[in-house]
């Protein structure tokens, strides 16, 4: 497939975005391209999440102020910043996981493929079916490895081909070889890194559209962390990935675009805000905002 040249350079393997597809089903399926050559785009991928003036409140306390952010399909977007600046709050707002937090209130709009996630007709469970999440601490169910992965597909009625689905999910999470002989063993017997990859496999088993990762490697050792990062490279393109990380090097290694959040102390109380959002290379090499520069050069945070 010949792609037109472009000025914007994007890193590594990225399968092509289908050039056209209509809702009635005939889609030009792309090859899963894994060329090492640079891929160029003259139109960037479509926006999956369009966050417009999003503010989050817990009761009277404001956690996030006026976030404007566009997350594009097939890319890895990283949210970085010091602790407590609202990045996880923003992430969890993307799949309505904050709904169960008492006194949670959101203003502004989060548009997912053009639909307001917090709109009237929206089914919360449908939102989470399409937008999956992996949490900071691995949280496997006290079931077997197989049942952990198979649980959600079974709920969704995907009973035929379940074993293949489980295998594909485990392969996708780079865990298959390690556990293929012990699928009936308890998931709690796995190491931390394996459990986290299990959680990733669990999430991709139902083929969500988006994967939200909340500091997925922060509870893991460096080797396990490396495995997770490799995983993300292989997953992107098939999934849109948003990752919260406090590890700047990780963001630099993995993400296409990076958003820097910080605490704005302008008003009476500090409120989390989006300071800068750009291509990862720009953020780390020549950030526009001095606060970003201070953070990425290690001056604070």
């Amino acid at each position, binding site marked *: 497939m010949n792609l037109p040249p472009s000025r914007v350079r994007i890193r590594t393997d990225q399968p092509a975005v289908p050039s056209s597809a209509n809702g009635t089903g005939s889609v030009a399926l792309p090859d899963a391209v894994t060329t090492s050559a640079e891929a160029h785009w003259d139109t960037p991928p479509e926006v999956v999440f369009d966050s417009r003036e999003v503010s989050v409140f817990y009761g009277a306390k404001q956690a996030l102020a006026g976030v404007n952010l566009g997350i594009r399909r097939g890319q890895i977007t990283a949210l970085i910043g010091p602790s407590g600046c609202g990045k996880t709050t923003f992430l969890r707002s993307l799949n309505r996981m904050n709904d169960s937090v008492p006194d949670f209130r959101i203003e502004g709009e989060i548009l997912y493929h053009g639909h307001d996630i917090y709109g009237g007709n929206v089914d919360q469970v449908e939102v989470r079916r399409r937008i999956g999440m992996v*949490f900071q601490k691995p*949280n496997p169910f006290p079931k077997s490895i197989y049942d952990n992965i198979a649980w*959600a597909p079974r709920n969704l009625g995907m009973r035929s081909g379940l074993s293949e689905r489980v295998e594909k999910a485990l392969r996708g999470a780079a865990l298959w070889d390690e556990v293929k002989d012990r699928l009936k063993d308890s998931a709690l017997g796995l190491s931390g890194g394996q459990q986290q990859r299990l959680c990733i496999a669990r*999430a991709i088993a139902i083929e969500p559209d988006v994967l939200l990762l909340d500091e997925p490697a922060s509870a893991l050792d460096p080797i396990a962390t490396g495995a997770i990062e490799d995983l993300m490279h292989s997953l992107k393109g098939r999934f849109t990935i948003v990752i919260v990380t406090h590890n700047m090097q990780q963001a630099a290694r993995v993400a296409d675009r990076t958003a820097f959040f910080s605490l704005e102390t302008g008003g009476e109380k500090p409120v989390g805000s989006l300071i800068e959002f750009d291509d990862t290379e720009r953020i780390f090499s020549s950030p526009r905002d001095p606060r970003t520069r201070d953070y990425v050069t290690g001056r604070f945070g």
Partner: protein
Amino acid sequence: MSSAATPAAPRAARRRDWRRRGDRFGDAALYAICAAAALLGAAVLILIAYEVVEGARPAIDKFGLSFVTGSEWKPTEQFNVFGAGSLLYGTLLSSFFALLLGAPIAISIGLFLSMLAPKAVRNVVSPLVEMLAAIPTVILGFWGVLILAPFVKSTIEPALHDTVGFIPLFGEPQTTGLSVFTASLILTIMIIPIISSVSRDLFMSVPRDMQDGASALGATRWEVIRGVVLPTTASGVVAASLLGLGRALGEAIAVAQVIGAGSEINIDLFKTGDTLAARIASQFPGALTELHQASLYYCAVLLLVIGVAANLIASWIGRRFSYAGGQVR
């Protein structure tokens, strides 16, 4: 403590010595008193078991184990023969039926309070459900005799007989509402609060992040409950149900008031029956012969065995299968 003597030190030193000795004595005394109290508890239990078995000795000598199966109970001087078979049957039938009815309701209430109700509702409804347990059983039984039993006879028995009368449990409506069925209803009311408060606490202790993990996979609320909450708390819920069962097995007063003191073994729930505890309560104060009294003690021995067994199994399950990463299918 250094003994660097300063003038006028000897009296102060003696006071310190006395204080230290007093402290050591005080510590030892407190420990002894507390330990003695704890031991007293165990001693009383053993004493209770001993006296009850001793009281039953004449009946044990006379009837042996056939007491457990025999179902003749004739206290008069003329016959003087006793068998607890029908009582054992009535005890187990009424208690298990109450558990069958009460456990699902109580677990549902526990789920409601822990997972569905907002905090304000929970803070009102929880105490109300626990208040159900605070009603003295004699008052519950009194209400049962005068209000529930007639209602059962006039409304519930015919309704059940008309719809599911093919099940031998639900036979013809009887003349009074005093029956095993009414007794089971009263027992159900009694055990629901116990099972529901323990269940509620268990459900609330399931880690938030595990429930979040299940929700994040696009599961409905029920699926989260069925897939994560219930399996991880299963053993605790079973233990709680056994506690409820133990309570039902031992209830004497309310059951005596509404069960109608029948002596036969029937499959029909609407007929009268009796339980071990209720028989003791109703006949002991007026026991006619020595053998009669000893037989009632024998009933107490049987009751003690099943009651304590239910309790011990509940404790054992609670201890053994605590949710600390156990494998759940």
